[in-house]
């Protein structure tokens, strides 16, 4: 599959009040859902043979991991990263999958500290879209080596994302 170039991002999307209100309404902080989402992430990482899988909720200025597998270092300690470093911001901005086969040569990602310093090289993420139609984040897998992703891979990621959003919606408070 051809890597996405993530063109024409909507810079206003991340701080959309309606989108942030949707995230607030989901009550992710007090739902005790991390364990369930991390199990799905672990399953995805094993399926793709990649070390890291994430349920990333993209806030206005940071991405926040509500489920994860394989994280270490500052990302694990902080539970997220600044939004401008993230691959997942592009999923939200474009409301579409974002595929990076080799981040060292990707125009949107090659300067990110996650690539330059943390060594992330490949990424595939799909939108987490709530039942009300808001993109709240990305379900993604990533790894330290360049690799390609097929249409089948993308379809499988979409299935994981659907499971994630169903679990999240079951705990909606708003």
């Amino acid at each position, binding site marked *: 599959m051809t890597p996405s170039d993530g063109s024409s991002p909507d810079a206003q999307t991340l701080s959309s009040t309606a989108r942030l209100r949707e995230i607030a309404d989901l009550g992710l*902080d007090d739902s005790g859902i991390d364990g369930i989402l991390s199990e799905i992430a672990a399953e995805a990482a094993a399926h793709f043979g990649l070390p890291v899988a994430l349920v990333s909720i993209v*806030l206005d200025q*940071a991405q926040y991991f509500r489920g994860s597998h394989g994280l270490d270092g500052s990302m694990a300690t902080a*539970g997220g*990263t600044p939004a401008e470093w993230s691959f997942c911001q592009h999923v939200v901005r474009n409301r579409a999958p974002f595929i990076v086969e080799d981040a060292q040569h990707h125009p949107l990602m090659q300067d990110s500290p996650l690539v330059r*310093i943390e060594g992330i090289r490949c990424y595939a993420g799909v939108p987490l879209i709530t039942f009300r139609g808001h993109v709240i984040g990305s379900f993604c897998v990533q790894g330290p080596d360049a690799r390609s992703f097929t249409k089948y891979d993308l379809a499988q990621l979409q299935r994981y994302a659907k499971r994630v959003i169903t679990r999240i919606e079951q705990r909606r408070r708003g």
Partner: protein
Amino acid sequence: MTTDQPSATVYGLTLPSEAEVIADLMRLVGADVAIFASREASDADEEAGPRGYVELLLRLGEQLAARSDVAGVFGRSLAVRVNTYIALSSPRTSA
């Protein structure tokens, strides 16, 4: 040898000023919440004794994150950024 030189600099991560945080909050949720949150964080900081600006920002983020509205989302976002800064700025030991 131990150094506390922030590697956050290497990552290009800087923290916002308090004025920038309040301005963002005002834009998102209005002046009342923004000013209240800032005073709460400052008061708590004074009660706890002298602390650095990083701790003040973290406290503000965590206090806001406890809210169930858009201000809570903003607070979680701020807390992640500050916690990243702290994680990257921890003293590192070298030979």
